[in-house]
């Protein structure tokens, strides 16, 4: 297994798609951060929420999450899908690896490469944000958001890998993965909407309904905020909060199905 992972990581670090994504995503996040800061800089500061803070994090440090589906499909499709299109998967089967070992190796590689891109993007952007605009004291909240974003990220990786393995073809698999991930994100968004309505406290939604409709059209994580009129506190919620259980269900379901399909698949 270690030999297999070593091979997969060697391939990953020699892949142009990995390095391109790793360099491009933080750049996009930083540009978004600078743009958002300019938006806030001209305003009269009435409260602590009118300056740069972690409140703006989902719009900046986590900007890449809005296109995470495409990131995952690109990374996994180019690296794992390449094994199919080049026939290199045959070498590993002939070398004596079982199907379960291979699939587990692909799964771990997919999750690690996507996590690397996600974490590095976020941390680099946050670091630059603190350097440019000062530390805002919300570090633990930032870390919490980062950690909690890993669950749906992993779920999307599992689903993307499943689509590519089931298709047995890189292009078809990547297209199927985009469609599949879109459906899953819509389900997550719908779940959040249902959760919000089950909450007993009076919640006034700040452009919430419109945001849900617009955002659910995109294959992304939903992120919005609720304003509690009683405490006048802003409670930041993302799709990860109610969806951790759904993420685990998604991962388990597609992991097991992926293993079964891969085990029985006739390779050419």
């Amino acid at each position, binding site marked *: 297994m270690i*030999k*297999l992972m*070593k*091979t997969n990581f*060697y*391939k990953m670090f*020699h*892949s*142009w798609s990995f390095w391109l994504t790793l360099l491009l995503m933080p750049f996009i996040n930083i540009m978004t951060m600078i743009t958002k800061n300019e938006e806030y800089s001209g305003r009269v500061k009435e409260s602590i929420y009118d300056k740069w803070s972690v409140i703006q994090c989902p719009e900046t440090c986590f900007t890449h999450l809005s296109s995470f589906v495409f990131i995952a499909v690109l990374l996994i499709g180019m690296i794992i899908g*390449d094994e199919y299109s*080049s*026939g*290199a*998967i*045959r*070498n*590993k*089967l*002939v*070398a*004596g*690896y*079982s199907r379960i070992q291979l699939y587990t190796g692909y799964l771990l590689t997919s999750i690690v490469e996507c996590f690397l891109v996600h974490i590095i993007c976020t941390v680099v952007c946050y670091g630059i944000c603190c350097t440019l605009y000062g530390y805002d004291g919300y570090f633990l909240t930032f870390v919490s958001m980062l950690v909690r974003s890993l669950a749906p990220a992993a779920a999307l990786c599992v689903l993307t890998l499943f689509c590519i393995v089931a298709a047995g073809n890189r292009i078809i698999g990547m297209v199927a993965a985009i469609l599949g991930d879109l459906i899953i994100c819509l389900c997550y968004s719908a779940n959040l909407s249902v959760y919000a309505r089950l909450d007993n406290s009076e919640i006034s939604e700040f452009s919430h309904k419109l945001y849900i409709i617009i955002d659910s059209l995109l294959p992304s994580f939903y992120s919005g905020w609720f304003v509690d009129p009683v405490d006048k506190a802003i409670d930041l919620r993302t799709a990860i909060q109610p969806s951790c259980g759904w993420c685990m269900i998604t991962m388990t379901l597609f992991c097991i199905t992926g293993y079964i399909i891969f085990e029985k698949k*006739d*390779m*050419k």
Partner: protein
Amino acid sequence: MEYVLKAESLEKKYRGYTALDGFIMNVPKGSIYGFVGKNGAGKTTLIRLICGLQKPTSGSFEIYGVRNNDKKILEQRKRIGAVVETPSIYPGLTAYENLKMQYMTLGLSDYKSIPDLLKLVGLENTGKKTARNFSLGMKQRLGIAVALCGAPDMLILDEPINGLDPQGIIEMRELIIKLNREKGITVLISSHILDELSRLATHYGFIDNGKLIREMSAEELEKECRRSTHIEVTDSSCLSSVLDNMGFEYKITDEHNVDIFGRPNISQLTKALMPSGCDIISVNENDEDLESFFISLIGGSKS
């Protein structure tokens, strides 16, 4: 005789199509086994089953005495190097990196032998050129180099000389013979180029419609294909006694037809048959090569 690969009543069915039907095969250790068959006969399907790319519908096979349904088969597969249909190489990596990847897959940490392997297949000067930019022949050589990683005991080559130029074909032949004779590697090679196969193989397996039609050694094939004179007579038993007196080796096909292995003097033969009243009806010369033997075995017309 020790066999490295034995197939017993192997079957592989796809939806509505049977690729292998009760297939039986025995590959002796240390041989170069030439696998001959028409397109769609089942050669590549068999290779896929042996390499673990697909599972048989029924039947079984053994690699080095281990059955395919035994978990230990995975260990035995490590002793095999294979090129299945097309070379399995990463197009975005160089030749050296491709071999390094295969070494890592096999758990080999010493990469010092990679340049020697590249030299063996004639790819030592490719430098930083990625496999994507290789010619078909270069990709084929790289595929074979990948199969040779880890010094396998058995090599499975599916149409290995496809895309090679004449010089490349000669070099490939010499390489296979060298690996077989110097290192004792058993080679299973499928090819349509029968002339080339006839220069290599020590054993042959003829496959048609998913079944093994004939399995024979090169010596047996030579006897079958050797030059003969086909004589049709009125009574083959009279001819046989004359041929025994003349010291010719022959084979009686039926009561009127005899194949004589040699070049008998027809005038002398006619003279010798006259007292017994046996007449010669026709005389034909046969010079069967592997191609015509294959055609006669499998069926079809010679182009």
